[in-house]
């Protein structure tokens, strides 16, 4: 059973049903049901032509639902005028679907869920498992999202920026449960980048590929976080890096810089260094300057301060950090790191322990606690001698 193919076909078939006159919400429901049926029966009874099978079954599911809903007369009329299956302008449909599922009227969580279902071809159960919520909760979130976009016309031009943000969120959610959300985000962004020539779609794809390339090195065998400087770079996926760099260079050549291209450029500079010591921190600081200029994002300023600590020394990093809001996420962790580099392990240990208490997730908390423990053990060693 080719689940990957099935999922690739999902947005295409939704597009075809919409072209035949189904509204988006009904078409999406029908395709999801056809998908569940395919998951049930394809293993024992694979179809000769997967796409034709999915279109036929989804259309039948749509008609069944329309028949059941007899009060809605316009759907009844469609029954009389069922068009013959045929080729459609699938490419445009897919792009429109991206815009619809990430419509600015949706909350980020709703847009993520709807995108994963209608474009990703994931089942509600898979999405619920990936986000650790009950299936009924995810089903409600999706149906509310569909109601919200029900009055949006399918052929309206959309906002690419919100689509990219949604895909970025999916990628950042990482990996938990059966569905690899990072890989799924890459698949959806790759498809999007094939549908639009916008350089930021390419920038986001490059960014994802360059970060995904480092994934095997990012966690140790016991699940703990391994910081960039300590990663075993031979574990980095050189094919993904090469692809990411190619895509990024082509995007940058068009001279329309955006935040995702700038972030990808930083990731590419890290990927380019054979050892942590070879990292071109001066160029990285310059890219952070671009990122700050483009977004004004305080987190970009925080990362810039850390990069400056590498390029110009920890004192310069601490001076840059001093100008930032101490309540920023990871501000204390960055201060701890820079204090250790500046030769003050006691302050660093205290700050690492403090950062651990406000860490946003368990792997980071463990990592920060370990850093404090390492420095405290070192300090005890000095005191003993």
């Amino acid at each position, binding site marked *: 059973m080719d689940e990957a193919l099935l999922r690739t076909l999902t947005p295409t078939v939704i597009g075809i049903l919409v072209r035949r006159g189904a509204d988006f919400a009904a078409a999406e429901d029908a395709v999801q049901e056809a998908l569940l049926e395919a998951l049930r029966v394809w293993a024992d009874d694979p179809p000769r032509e997967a796409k034709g099978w999915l279109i036929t079954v989804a259309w039948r599911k749509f008609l069944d639902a329309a028949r059941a809903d007899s009060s809605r007369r316009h759907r009844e009329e469609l029954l009389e005028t069922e068009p013959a299956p045929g080729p459609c302008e699938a490419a445009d449909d897919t792009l429109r679907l991206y815009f619809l599922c990430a419509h600015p009227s949706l909350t980020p969580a709703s847009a993520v869920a709807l995108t994963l279902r209608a474009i990703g071809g994931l089942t509600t159960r898979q999405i619920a498992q990936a986000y650790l919520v009950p299936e009924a909760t995810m089903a409600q979130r999706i149906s509310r999202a569909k109601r919200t976009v029900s009055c949006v016309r399918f052929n309206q031009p959309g906002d690419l920026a919100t689509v990219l943000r949604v895909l970025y969120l999916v990628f950042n959610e990482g990996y938990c449960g059966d569905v690899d959300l990072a890989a799924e985000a890459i698949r959806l962004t790759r498809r999007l980048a094939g549908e639009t020539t916008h350089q930021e779609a390419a920038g986001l794809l490059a960014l994802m590929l360059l970060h995904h390339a480092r994934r095997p090195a990012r966690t140790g065998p*016991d699940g703990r976080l391994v910081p960039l400087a300590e990663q075993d770079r031979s574990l980095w996926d050189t094919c993904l890096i090469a692809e990411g760099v190619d895509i990024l260079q082509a995007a940058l050549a068009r001279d329309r810089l955006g935040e995702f291209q700038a972030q990808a450029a930083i990731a590419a500079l890290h990927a380019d260094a054979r050892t942590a010591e070879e990292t071109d921190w001066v160029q990285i600081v310059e890219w952070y300057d671009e990122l700050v200029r483009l977004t004004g994002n305080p987190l970009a300023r925080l990362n810039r301060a850390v990069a400056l600590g590498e390029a110009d020394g920890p004192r310069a990093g601490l001076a840059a950090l001093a100008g930032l809001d101490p309540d920023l996420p990871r501000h204390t962790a960055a201060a701890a790191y820079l204090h250790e580099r500046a030769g003050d392990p006691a302050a660093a240990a205290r700050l690492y322990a403090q950062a*651990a*208490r406000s860490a946003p997730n368990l792997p980071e908390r*463990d990592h920060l*606690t370990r850093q*404090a*423990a390492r420095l405290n053990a070192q300090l005890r060693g000095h005191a003993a001698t």
Partner: protein
Amino acid sequence: MAKYLLLKHYRGAPAPVNNVPMDQWTPEEISAHMKYMEDFAGRLEESGEFVDAQALSPEGTFVRYDGRGRPPVTDGPFAETKDLIAGWMVIDVESRERALELAAELSAAPGAGGEPIHEWLEVRPLLSAPPTITE
């Protein structure tokens, strides 16, 4: 089967026997502790007794309703709050004895010096749905 909540406290439980904060352990002792906790949850999943486990951030805020049309009133965090939950595990077991046995096993997780922490865990039965047959 009955469900029990095993509560771990930052504050509010009696002091454990091996009472050294984690940032004063060696990195190897931290690894040993993490592995023990992970293996413990893994064994419960295999025995069909695991329901849920969550860790909580120590930061919290008290909130209350302040009347129609008004924003919620917030207060805290209170430094003097006696009881501070660090996290929990929910288990589904045959008996109270089994729940206590598992809590004791969890409390034996190694800490400083590789010695068991002997941490006090609070075991609370979850109130279940009423049975169908009551007479």
